[in-house]
């Protein structure tokens, strides 16, 4: 059984006038690193939203470990425990420190306040920011902010990390550092990583690349075939 399986997935907006996804079929195996590429507006982010249960398909089915995601009794719990998000714009909460931002997803677990803090320190250490625990996002560089966001995405030990252009807002040096970190953690921890990117050099580091155009997957190639 695949970790994620999409069948004839469509997503329409404005009463069908805008078709973001036009029948997408693919599956994701546990531990894979998949890059999703394609031009702007091809449906990459919409696909990511479907995988993260942030949005529901208009038609088609999306299964997570064999269970229909649209029938999931608690999508918030799915997002909290199975999914880790890394956003292009980081989306750290400005009034919370680095450590507190990492603790945010942990409110949906049974961890106590002290356990949450302890775990956030471990995660920030993992991304090399244990010296920035009490810094607010405004006092961190772009690369550091994204590293905090990476630590936050791992807060509840998700099976799948969904990254939407995670290096899109970074200079090339920081982009390399952040990408290396994401890939290293994915490999060390064996998590599944689905990464949306415009950059072919980033996609080249994935084990598999889905190329999209006009709401369809037009190619699905594993690294061996690239």
């Amino acid at each position, binding site marked *: 059984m695949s970790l994620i399986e999409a069948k004839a997935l469509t997503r329409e907006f404005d009463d069908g006038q805008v078709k973001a996804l036009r029948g997408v079929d693919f599956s994701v195996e546990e531990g894979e690193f998949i890059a999703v590429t394609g031009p702007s507006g091809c449906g990459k982010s919409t696909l990511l939203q479907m995988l993260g249960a*942030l949005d529901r398909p208009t038609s088609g089915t999306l299964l997570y470990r064999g269970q229909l995601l649209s029938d999931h009794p608690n999508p918030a719990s799915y997002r909290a425990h199975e999914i880790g998000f890394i956003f292009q714009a980081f*989306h750290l909460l400005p009034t919370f420190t680095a450590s507190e931002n990492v603790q945010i997803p942990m*409110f949906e677990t049974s961890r106590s306040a002290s356990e949450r803090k302890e775990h956030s320190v471990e995660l920030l250490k993992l991304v090399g920011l244990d010296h920035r625990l009490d810094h607010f996002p405004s006092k961190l560089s772009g690369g550091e902010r994204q590293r905090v966001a990476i630590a936050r995405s791992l807060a509840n030990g998700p099976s799948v990390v969904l990254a939407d252009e995670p290096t899109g807002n970074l200079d090339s040096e920081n982009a390399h550092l952040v990408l290396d970190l994401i890939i290293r953690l994915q490999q060390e921890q064996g998590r599944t990583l689905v990464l949306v990117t415009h950059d072919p050099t980033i996609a080249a580091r994935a084990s598999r690349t889905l190329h999209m155009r006009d709401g369809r997957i037009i190619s699905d190639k594993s690294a061996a075939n690239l």
Partner: protein
Amino acid sequence: MTFFSVVVRGLLRRPVRTSLTLAGISIGIAAVVALVGMSRGFEKSWQVGLKARGTDMVVSNMGGGLTPKPFDASFRDRIANLPHIAATCTLLIQLTSIENSDLMILSAREWGGFSWSNLEVVSGRMPRDATERAVVLGQTAAEVLKKKVGDPIQIETAELQVVGIVKGGALVEDGSVILSLPILQEILRLQNQITTIDIRATPGTTDQQLHELSQQIEQLIPEVRAVTVSEHLSHSEGFRIVRAMSWVTSLLAIVVGVLGVMNTMLMTVFERTHEICVLLALGWTRGRIMRMVLYESALLGLLGGIVGVAIGAAGAHLLGNTPAVRGLLEPDLSVALLGLSAIIAVGVGVVSGLYPAWRSSRLTPSLALQSG
């Protein structure tokens, strides 16, 4: 970091706006404390005054005013021998302006009646007899009127003399101008008219027996009401209006408070749409988002309540010391009223937060993926 610290952090995002909203709620709650405290204080001060005179039951016709309407003094003879009545004392009480003062209590008492017995002379003396054209002033009344023993005092068209300053054991007594009943009846041309019969019950009379006594009196004299001290003012239509007006004014202030908090919380939700969507994307449930907004709103209410209670209590004290009401009442700032005001404040916060909380929970987490 606890959930409560997330809530507090939300309020600290916009300190100026939070402070202004707090000021809005505080003023509303201060109005409740001050206005209701004053009206309750008036009621309580009268009760304490009556108790100080050793009165268990009051016979009067409260009608629509704050002071009773006059009736014939001979009514007393019809009830004096009823069971459980130890003593009676007839009075003519007016709430009136004396010389340059605002409202003062003018209390004329049957000479020799028990309602004189609580008065303790501080300086000067008591009137010599029922016909002496003299008054004694409660200590507060003397201060308000700036009078001392020997000074003349103008009561309506008559000039009397202050012969003593007394302590009455209650604010209302200390704020009164006290004189012999026939003197005031003559001045006001209300011969044989009284407004009140104070009744002292025989020792050991139960509440049930007092209740039966009041029924007997009202059967004998249908023009009057006989009520126990604690019920006295509540039978006044005028006082009911004062009480209702204080609550209505308070209610308006509360409604303004609700609108202020709701406006703030709605703005907070609109401003933080993106942040809330990120929280939803990170797995926060809609219930937790709603709780966050509601707790922020309730916390605003609680803080506003605490500040409002403090301002209201201080304001009520200031009002109570103004010349217009000094000696008439002492604001009732009981724990019950202060607690009720704080509960109202939290209620204001919760009610105001309901709609914004619902709005926040309807947001779509997918907005989080849009850059912002």
